[in-house]
């Protein structure tokens, strides 16, 4: 068993006193895909930057592949690869040059770099545009150039900070299948805003908010923690003042969580009587996330 990541009591305070991470502890002992989800400013990127040895922790113990990130960062860097958030490739290189010369800059011999660059570009669907400069590619393709560059590296851990932002649904699914394949022999530490992505891909899911871990576990286990079976979504401006229910405001509208079939049937009766339009959905991990972030819905 490989000890991939060990974090104990991690605190990161930026200059100005902003606490980005507050007493974060977790351990990852097996490969696969770890999804890190959280709202903007939750501390996801800070955590990735510390694990990828880009910045130092303020306090706490952080080990990656058995090496301390402060004292053994050179050993860590040899065995990791990173796609940074909102990064841009070198625009006047072609995808092939980008991947190939990035591999060479990591010390890979020519033969290996040629083979790995070709394989990686093929996997992310960029082989046909390998000789077109990045400046002439779409935003999604440029993002895939970075993904191809990072995944071409033979590494033990791949840190991908929101790698699928800007990709169309088809390209995103293409990247998912590549990540699944790569994760068979390594660990992929993935941050994402897309709960669906985290749910579909992750073997282990970490939810983070305001610098603290609020949930962690297998997606199926986490789903079992959701107390409510259904959610009823009404329009944002629907008047439900006469109904005795609590609701939360989400992007979708006013959301009422319901525990049982009987409760659902009663609620729907009220809504129909008042002529309100609504949608009924099964709860998902996204709901658990919303409940945790908004501080409600414990089982």
């Amino acid at each position, binding site marked *: 068993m490989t000890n991939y990541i060990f974090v104990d009591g991690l605190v990161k305070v930026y200059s100005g006193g902003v606490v980005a991470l507050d007493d974060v502890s977790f351990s990852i002992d097996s490969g696969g895909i770890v999804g890190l989800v959280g709202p903007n400013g939750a501390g996801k990127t800070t955590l990735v930057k510390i694990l990828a040895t*880009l910045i130092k922790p303020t306090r706490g113990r952080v080990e990656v592949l058995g090496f301390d990130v402060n004292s053994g960062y050179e050993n860590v860097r040899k065995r990791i*690869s990173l796609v940074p958030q909102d990064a841009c490739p*070198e625009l006047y*290189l072609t995808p092939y040059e980008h991947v190939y010369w*990035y591999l060479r800059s990591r*010390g890979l011999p020519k033969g290996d770099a040629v083979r790995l660059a070709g394989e990686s570009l093929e996997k992310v669907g960029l082989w046909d545009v390998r000789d077109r400069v990045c400046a002439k590619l779409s935003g999604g393709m440029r993002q895939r150039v970075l993904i191809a*560059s990072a995944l071409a590296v033979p590494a033990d851990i791949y840190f991908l900070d929101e790698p699928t932002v800007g990709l169309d649904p088809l390209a995103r699914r293409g990247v998912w299948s590549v990540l699944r394949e790569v994760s068979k022999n390594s660990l992929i530490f993935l941050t994402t805003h897309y709960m669906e992505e985290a749910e579909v891909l992750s073997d282990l899911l970490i939810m983070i908010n305001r610098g603290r871990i609020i949930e962690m576990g297998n997606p199926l286990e986490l789903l079992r923690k959701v107390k409510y079976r259904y959610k009823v979504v009404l329009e944002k401006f629907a008047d439900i003042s006469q109904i005795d229910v609590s609701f939360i405001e989400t992007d979708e509208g006013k959301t009422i969580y319901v525990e049982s079939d009987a409760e659902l049937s009663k609620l729907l009766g009220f809504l129909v009587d008042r002529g309100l339009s609504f949608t009924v959905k099964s709860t998902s991990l996204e709901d658990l996330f919303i409940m945790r972030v908004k501080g409600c819905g414990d089982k």
Partner: protein
Amino acid sequence: MAINRVIGATVFMTRSYLKEPLAFVSDLIIPLIMFMIVHLGTGRGVESLIGILIVIAWSSGSFALARKLGSYKAWRLMDMFIASPLKPIEFAIAAALAHLIIIVLPATIVTVIMILISSINPASLILLIASIIVAWITGITFGLYVYSKLADPFKISSTANLLNLLLIILPPVIYPISILPPAYS
């Protein structure tokens, strides 16, 4: 293995410049116009060309290096290099070498003009190359200093750009101070 990494990173940073020959023209146009004015006006064009070579070498170290590192920081491409076996010193050497390669063409153009308008003996050529190398190393040191002191990538670029422009415009690098009216001298 370290050499392989440096070569890889150097080529990574050089190739994009080599695809844009017009960049060389725009970098050379102001210094060459100044050379023509000085040459036609005072007949001291060779000194002017030597100044241009020094400016090119300095700017490749300072302005270009700082701009490159600044843009990689802004694009967050730098993070991919940090999270890799490439050491910071190797990255800095690669960036410096990349910009040395980039100045080969403009420096050659200037040297050819110099040979055409005057006769250069081998001793002066060696002295000139030594001066270029010193200017380049000083420029690199300055570029790295600017990069390390300024956190904002855009400030890095604009500061280095300003200093480079002053070097071109103000005497005595490209033209001697003696050609200015006495009041300005």
